[in-house]
């Protein structure tokens, strides 16, 4: 909350990037608290790749309506025209164009000078070294060697025209912290996190939910109804489900403290290339 208030006070045009997932839910909840009784003094923006789960979009629209927030959706229309999609283009090109490029376009279009993101240091090795206030140059690039030291709770928020800062208020939270907080504060989350019978296809050892007709079946594949849930949410063709019967928050936390697999395993983009996350960040991905 301290971090959010600093950003709201010191930047001309901040925005909160909202990915509809559980981390975004917690981040949004904290923003509602930080500025209460005022509304958060910045808009919420969703960079939509057009391949998100339908339930995510429904949940997103309900949340925005319920909280009465200023909301922006951004889609890379150029990418849509080029027909970029995760099946034919490959996951890395799809992510590059529809997520990384789209984010840069959106930040430039609206001239945002600070953007909140829900990334956490425990997610992945290169993220462990990310600052809370992460400085980006005019081209949204991230230079791991040229980051500002962060002492105490004093954040250097000064930038020149065209430069921007990405802000990670959940930086020191762990996945378990997130779930415990959702449980303690009873924060609404997308139903996909709860176990339910869903139509899934097993592909390359991962269970993919067939969310719409755009997913073509390969020879030998068949759709099965399985009791599954998701630990992390993204584009449905790139998000693996896990078999689980945890259909309540309590069930999820119980599953968590006995879990032996880290959450990013369900994300197919990470295993694409060595040190892929670090590479993506240098290019401007969150």
């Amino acid at each position, binding site marked *: 909350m301290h971090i959010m208030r600093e950003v709201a006070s010191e930047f001309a045009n901040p925005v909160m990037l909202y990915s509809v997932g559980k981390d975004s839910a917690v981040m949004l909840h904290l923003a509602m608290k930080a500025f209460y009784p005022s509304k958060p003094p910045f808009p919420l923006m969703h960079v939509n790749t057009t391949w998100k789960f339908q339930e995510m979009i429904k949940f997103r629209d309900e949340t925005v309506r319920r909280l009465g927030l200023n909301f922006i959706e951004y889609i890379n229309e150029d990418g849509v025209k080029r027909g970029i999609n995760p099946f034919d283009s490959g996951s890395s090109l799809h992510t590059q164009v529809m997520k990384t490029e789209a984010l840069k376009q959106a930040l430039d279009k609206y001239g945002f000078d600070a953007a909140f993101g829900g990334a956490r240091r425990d997610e992945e*090795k*290169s993220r462990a070294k990310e600052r809370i206030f992460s400085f980006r140059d005019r081209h949204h690039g991230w230079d791991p060697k040229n980051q500002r*030291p962060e002492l105490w*709770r*004093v954040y250097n928020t000064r930038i020149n025209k065209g430069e921007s800062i990405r802000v990670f208020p959940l930086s020191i939270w*762990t996945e378990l912290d997130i779930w*415990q907080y959702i449980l303690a504060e009873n924060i609404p989350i997308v139903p996909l996190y709860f176990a339910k019978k869903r139509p899934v296809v097993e592909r390359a050892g991962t269970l993919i939910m067939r969310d719409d007709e755009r997913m073509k079946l390969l020879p030998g594949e068949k759709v099965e109804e399985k009791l599954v849930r998701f630990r992390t949410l993204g584009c449905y063709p790139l998000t693996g489900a896990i078999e689980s019967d945890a259909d309540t928050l309590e069930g999820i936390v119980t599953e968590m403290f006995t879990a032996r697999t880290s959450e990013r395993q369900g994300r197919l983009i990470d295993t694409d290339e060595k040190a892929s996350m670090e590479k993506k960040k240098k290019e401007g991905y969150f």
Partner: protein
Amino acid sequence: MNAPTDLQKFLAAQEKKSLLRFLTCGSVDDGKSTLIGRLLYDTKLLFEDTLASLEKDSKKFGTTGGDIDFALLVDGLEAEREQGITIDVAYRFFATDKRKFIVADTPGHEQYTRNMATGASNSDLAVILIDARKGVLTQTRRHAYIASLLGIRHVVLAVNKIDLMDYSQAVFDRVVSDFHQFSARLNFASQVAIPLSARFGINVIEKSKETPWYTGPSLLSHLEVVDVDTALADTAFRLPVQWVNRPDLDFRGFSGTIAGGRIKPGQPIAVAKSGRTSTVTRIVTMDGDKAEAVAGDAITLTLADEVDISRGDVLSDPQARPVVSDQFAAHLLWMADEELLPGRQYLLKLGTATVPAQVSGLKHKIDVNTLDSHAARTLALNEVGYANFSLAQPLAFDAYRDNRDTGGFILIDRFTNATVGAGMIDFSLMRATNVHWQAVDVDKQARAAMKGQKPVVLWFTGLSGSGKSTIANLVEKALAGQGKHTYLLDGDNVRHGLNRDLGFTDADRVENIRRVGEAARLFVDAGLIVLTAFISPFRSERRMARELVGEGEFLEVFVDTPIEVCMRRDPKGLYEKAKAGKIKNFTGIDSPYEAPEQADLILKTVESSPEAQAESIVKYLRDKGYLG
């Protein structure tokens, strides 16, 4: 499994756990990353897929010959993997049944010492690693000193790689005694030394049979029980205001994170800077009003009275107010490649307030090996000094030893916006509270009106030989001919008197311009049109001079002459001497000139005569109404 019961037990246990934030530091290759990897591995916090990728990476990059290389768990970035050193601060999380931990893995390499200060600023304990084969090194001393400087009161001396010294007690004892000799002069409340081998897990989690002579706890058992409670909630109440919360005309709240003490509705508060007082009426949160809030809580307060409060103010206990002053003495750790320039204006951010500030006197720098003080004119990257600071406006603050949040500050370069220094306030300089500005009745406007002119500084800047003095002289003659009151401050002339004691280093150039700026300000105050002709190569100082006088009272005149032309003219034969190496720090030769980005007037001297240039300036002044 009986899930609900187990879950409740689990959650209850989680709530009771306290959090320990600590950092690890040591020299390159002392095994910091390996130690943290070992703690994560042995406390079973690694997931199966992370383990699988670790085993794969160990074979590819590992330095342990096929065994699991724990350092690979924490050395994330590609560059450092290739170089085999940690280059940034990495934060790691683990937990045991007794405590939760956040570890800052900080770099050993000297050039990244600033990152260690970052890790230390948010930690309560430091684990200082020493390679048993190498003993106490310069880096060890530096790290112990920085930890102590940043207020860490508890240290663990981890004597690593003891396996390579045959688990020798004599080796261990010698390292510990060397360290104590040095650390006796530092302000640590507890120091515990432990012989370890991170690679083999000796004395990390459990005590090992290999060191029967060692009677103390294992590293983890010590970390689980060490008492680092700083009792911030028992100090004086401080709330630096971040944001004024005004959703509508009926609600006016003040949001911030409590930096010290506790507060309840009904208690009095004082606004430190203005001295105004009021009473807390509510502590407002989304989950309903609170009966009490303590240090660390992010809250919104409402007050009984309409008091003028904005971001940067500190609400405090009226019985124990912070100091309010525009001058203080502080320790300063320099974190930029470009050295500190005393007299240059930086931005100082303390809590939620940001003000222009300068180092008004560098007392000494501190040799981190011996803790001795040496006279110094500047600080380089990673050096620590003790300095007096002078601020453009007074701030409310405490001594750093009393409160880290209201006594620690950063310095920001005004052009690059980089964080260049970290400071810890020692005490206020009383001078500031006793010397007040003397108000006088005849003011600038009155003096200027008598002369029928508007006071202004015409600040000529450009290379040596560009024609500054020539043109300024012509302008002054023209103005004097029209009965205007002027004064010309010339670079060479001033150096014969006012600035006779200054040389040509960067630091002296800054001081030179500061004094000229102050002199120009006095003349403007006297109602004069001031012309200054100085190379004034740095943007920062020209900006400082501009900010000393009022809006519209400063015109930057860039005498834009290419260096080849200046060298050809060379009226004083200086370029010739500089090229021959007879003059050091000559602008344009071995000292930089930063051209203005937004000069009010630009004179291209190769395109027209000095007389024509002077005429154009006089015309500009007349058009803008400076000549009455």
